[in-house]
């Protein structure tokens, strides 16, 4: 399974805000158990939505600017962007069926 690519404070604008495709960003940190449990599900979604949605993960320990800009205080948080606009936020571990539903709503 392909690992979700990393996005950083430095590359966020180019990779996410200016992306032609909708983007899901998985905010995580290595010490966060639920983040590690949700990561394989995000990878599966990345494969299922290949060509329709881009998927990135951002390590909140290493990248303070973007998480603070979006007021992230709990991880995992999945943020969905479309044309540079925040369209959806999913906080905490959710079942895959919920994630798909929220993702479909956000990119509709």
């Amino acid at each position, binding site marked *: 399974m392909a690992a979700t690519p990393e996005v950083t404070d430095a590359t966020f604008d180019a990779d996410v805000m200016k992306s032609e495709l909708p983007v899901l960003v998985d905010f995580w940190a290595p010490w966060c*158990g*639920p983040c590690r*449990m949700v990561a394989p599900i995000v990878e599966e979604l990345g494969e299922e939505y290949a060509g329709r949605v881009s998927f990135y993960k951002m390590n909140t320990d290493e990248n303070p600017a973007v998480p603070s800009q979006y007021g992230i*205080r709990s991880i995992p948080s999945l943020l969905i962007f479309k044309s540079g606009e925040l369209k959806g936020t999913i906080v905490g571990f959710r*079942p895959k*069926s919920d994630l798909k539903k929220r993702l479909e709503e956000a990119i509709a």
Partner: protein
Amino acid sequence: MTADRPETYDIAVIGAGGAGLTAALYGARARRRTIAFERLMTGGQIATTELVENYPGFPEGINGTDFALNLVQQVERFGAELRHEEVQAIAPRPEGPFQIETSGGAYDAHTVIATAGADYNKLGVPGEDEFIGRGVSYCATCDAAFFQDQEVVVVGGGDAAFDEALYTTRYASKVWLVHRRDSFRASGLLQERVFGNAKIEIIRNTVVERIVGAGMVEGAELRNVQTSEVRTLPVGAVFIFIGQTPNSHLLKGLVDLDKGGHARVDLRMRTKVPGLFVAGDLRVEAARQLVSACGDGATAALAAEAYLAELGIGEG
């Protein structure tokens, strides 16, 4: 097996925490067609536990997430299926297998092992969810060591709260035991120990209104329910022990439940319904430990195996 009817599983496990994953492991290793359903996070309560220090055989302890991921890998290696679906109903048939309805479809299984666990009751106050794992804890035995020489709050008035308050005194410089009533449900012996412990100060008739901090817990805002006096204690952690609610809604009307909603089972995890087993935190008298949950899972799977053999259902 007819074409319009999906194949029947030998063992269906509901809930993939320590008990459920172990049951699935034993089922798969017995070469029984085994499926496990999980509505939320595989691993259950253990998946969000930083360090498990009381599971035998790991002298330095093991990270709970690692434990859960390893166990999932082990279960899948032996061929059990794991589905991220929520079970909505268990229907026994007079003759023949159980039908299990889930968010993803319907399944038939000769035996069902319910290990849906229990969820800790929450206070439901601002800051609680935000600081879970960052000072808000539902397990002092797990997390108290992270608050060495700090002041902490323990909430509750029962055996669990008293037990865990005593445990936290090993590390904390001071323990504030906050209870909404004037009297306590905890056993006499525990009350004697708590009242006699110089590190514990008891605050009665008081509720936690809010948990505050920046990134980590820095304080608990308390309100006296009689005087309405409000004060904030500067503490690094809030340990919450206001009971657990077993996830037994699927078993209502099917098996005997105690008044707390735990399923009555015998020593082989059998309920009064032949072929239906309950293991882990969902059963009566559970020790609520990872090791005992795993043990229950193994016991239930072996009992299910014996039941299948009795029915004359051969190995898959």
